[in-house]
């Protein structure tokens, strides 16, 4: 079994520690052990590691390496779904019943086999706990009252899920592949349950999964330590993963250059540029599904006019922003579906055309322009982007007053529908187009009593056609027809929506020479540590 002391014993200088007394034990600085990957990352977003509650980037990334799910998107072709714990699955002819046949050789970190009972328990507790990500599965109609009868194990290897209403099968499967679908060991969770919380309190800071790693310790805003799951097959080369909270990207850069860490995760565009010729370092990257967009609140009379919304979309210098402010880290993306998600239109119909934008302003009767405020998150790269947008809009007569704020402050304001313009970031909750379609097109009730308060509602964007399309696409079982609906929705959104999508995040990690195998992906839970190697 791997212990900290055995790890230490593999490193140079251990003999001195053991035998030669205090003075002989002065360590050689830097350099990490060969069977351990050390990562510098900003981890102060972590709130909970319980899959039924976790929703932040780092939480989901760590969970993905500790828990297995029934199914996952194919890493090479995410438009396909493959089994993770499930060997195969059947769908009934009416599309309402999904039967999953589980692999028999998957073992939890505790040494116990994964059973269908664990899978049923995990999904049931998501609904019963009703934490933040519960809607991902709850949206199919599961409730605390019906979930026990609709999600159940019929034998140790068979899980049957009966949908309360017809849904596209791919939609259901993608939702089960989300972080909230992580399968928890029932016995461990219930052993640590308190006051009927199904182990939620304990699982916030512990793990009970069958993924390649298990959690050793998490000290908030300090570090996370993962040890290899000794029962996982095939065994990862790295027996331990250490993630150190290094808030400052400059400090991350220095650490990875010096060998204090193997991987740095949060370097800025400028820093990535500065290490372009450094042979001791190399990059790995992947398009992430996070997008940056400008929200125009239609409660502002000027933004109620479609010509003004179009004018803003034609006024922005997308390419200039991507090339000069966010090279390597954000690329141009103009659809509400980011690249990589099924159904995305890989087009960028807007470019900076000041004359056209001015003409649209004149058509709206606002040739002399107007004044608005724009909220944005007060750190890089938002500050620079906000200034660029301010200059672009000034060219068509819109005077923008910049209002910087902390991230959660800006979110609070937009949730209260109190913004005029706002630069925001969004990422889908699961790898299905319905997630973003619902967020940016679904607003069937624009009153303050609405129970759907997605970004469309926050900016008073209520379009009947788009709202109906969201529901129709979710239920369309023919995949080709379903994708066609999403294609039409994206085109309509380009014409009428108050969202100017600008950029899509490119997740970049910097690795030291000889360190390979870190897999990044569209969603945080696509990030995998198990292939990391060091030579």
């Amino acid at each position, binding site marked *: 079994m791997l212990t900290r002391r055995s790890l230490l014993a593999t490193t140079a200088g251990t003999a001195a520690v053991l035998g030669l007394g205090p003075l002989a034990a002065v360590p050689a600085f830097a350099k990490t052990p060969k069977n351990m990957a050390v990562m510098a990352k900003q981890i102060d977003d972590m709130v909970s590691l319980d899959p039924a509650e976790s929703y932040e980037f780092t939480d989901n990334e760590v969970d993905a390496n500790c828990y297995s799910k029934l199914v996952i998107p194919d890493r090479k072709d995410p438009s396909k779904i493959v089994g993770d714990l499930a060997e195969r699955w059947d769908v009934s002819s009416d599309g309402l019943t999904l039967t999953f046949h589980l692999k028999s050789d998957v073992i939890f970190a505790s040494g116990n086999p994964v059973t269908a009972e664990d899978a049923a328990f995990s999904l049931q507790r998501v609904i019963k706990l009703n934490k933040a990500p519960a809607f991902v599965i709850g949206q199919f109609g599961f409730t605390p009252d019906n979930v026990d009868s609709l999600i159940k194990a019929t034998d140790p290897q068979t899980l049957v899920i009966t949908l309360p209403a017809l849904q596209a099968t791919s939609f259901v499967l993608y939702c089960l592949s989300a972080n909230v679908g992580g399968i928890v060991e029932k016995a461990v969770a219930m052993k640590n349950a308190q006051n009927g919380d199904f182990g939620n309190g304990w699982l916030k*800071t512990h793990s009970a999964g069958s993924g390649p790693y298990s959690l050793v310790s998490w000290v908030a805003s300090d570090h996370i*330590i993962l040890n290899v799951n000794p029962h996982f097959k095939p065994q990862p080369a790295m027996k331990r993963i250490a993630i150190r909270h*290094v808030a400052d990207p400059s400090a991350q850069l220095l650490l990875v250059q010096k060998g204090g860490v193997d991987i740095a995760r949060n370097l800025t565009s400028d820093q990535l540029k500065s290490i372009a010729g450094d042979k001791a370092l190399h990059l790995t990257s992947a398009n992430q599904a996070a997008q940056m967009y400008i929200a125009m609140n239609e409660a502002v009379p000027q933004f109620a006019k479609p010509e003004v919304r179009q004018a803003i979309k034609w006024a922005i210098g997308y390419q200039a922003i991507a090339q000069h402010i966010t090279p390597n880290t954000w690329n141009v993306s103009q659809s509400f579906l980011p690249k990589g998600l099924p159904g995305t239109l890989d087009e960028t119909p807007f470019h900076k055309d000041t004359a056209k934008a001015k003409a649209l302003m004149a058509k709206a009767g606002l040739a002399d322009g107007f004044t608005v405020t724009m909220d944005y998150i007060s750190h890089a790269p938002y500050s620079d982007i906000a200034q660029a947008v301010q200059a672009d809009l000034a060219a068509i007569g819109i005077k923008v007053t910049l209002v910087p704020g902390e991230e959660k402050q800006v979110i609070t304001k937009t949730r209260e529908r109190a913004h005029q313009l706002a630069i925001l970031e969004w990422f889908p909750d699961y790898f299905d187009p319905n997630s973003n379609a619902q967020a940016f097109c679904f607003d069937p009730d624009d009153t303050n009593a609405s129970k759907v308060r997605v970004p469309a509602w926050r900016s008073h964007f209520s379009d009947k056609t788009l709202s109906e399309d969201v529901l129709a696409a979710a239920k369309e079982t023919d995949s080709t027809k379903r994708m066609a609906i999403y294609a039409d929705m994206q085109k309509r959104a380009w014409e009428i929506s108050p969202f100017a999508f600008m950029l899509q995040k490119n997740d970049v990690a910097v690795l030291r020479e000889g360190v390979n195998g870190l897999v990044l992906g569209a969603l945080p839970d696509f990030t995998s540590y198990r292939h990391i190697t060091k030579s």
Partner: protein
Amino acid sequence: MLRLKGIAQTLGSVLVTLFGLAFVTFIIGRVVPIDPTIAIVGDHAPPDVVAAARKALGLDRPLPVQFVIYLNHLLHGDLGRSVMTSHPVTQDIAQYFPATVELATTAILIAMLIGIPLGVLAAARQGSVFDQIVRVLSLAGQSIPVFVLGLLAILVFYVKLGWVPGTGQQDVLYDGMVPRVTGMLVVDCIIDGDWGAMWDALGHLALPALVLAYFSLSTITRMTRAFMLDALGGEYIVTARAKGLSATRILWRHAFRNIAVPLITVLALAYAGLLEGAVLTEVIFSWPGIGQYLTVSLLNADMNAVLGATLVIGCVYIGLNMLADLAYKIFDPRVR
């Protein structure tokens, strides 16, 4: 009787100060334009989940009721639970504060040991080259932002020279190897007899402590110099010189002893400032102290954590002030 009255007055003023601190922090926490539920349920959660989180935090109740409930819990030693760490705030403070105490104490000791002699000698040699150098160095310490100094120090001593390890309180290799007793890692390593871990911890402590020490040293040196110049102009110093006492004796036994009282105030304030959490230094050096904890909590509107940490810092300030008062009585017979 008089002594009892004095103690009662002191306790009364402490309680009023703490109540005021709790009240002001509580109000600021509630009017800050950040919805604390975002930290718990995120931006995407549906309204019913947000409402449940608000209820769990007690935010659905009137503000005065919330404050009374908070005070009631406070009087029972319950600072609430942090939404960011899921732990009781008292547990978090016990986790993070010792790291700040370790850093601040090391920094203030270095600053005192270097800053006081420098200030005394600079005053004794007023106008000399030595005095000019000390003044320039002190001014630089006050003028250079501590985060710039921190980054430069990392660049020079870690990247270029390799004299110290990188950021953080210890190497990940040693994580969890030393049993936690005081929470101050170097001390715990010594208690455990783990010399390898101790050297590693000392190595990590050296640079942030020196950076902070330089920052405090510049204040201590300048103030010591100013106090000494004032003292050296006193009539009793002229008398001492007329009596033929040695320069060293005059400097350290007569002048220095008379500046002890104001110097204690300066030291207490400098130490309190460091204990408050040298936020930027802790961020740059990834030091898991109270400053970093407070910053992350504040940006997430984690108000139990913010209130708890603020009260602890307030208590530290009050405690150090009381200690300074006590020290006055020891060093200045006139106060007794």
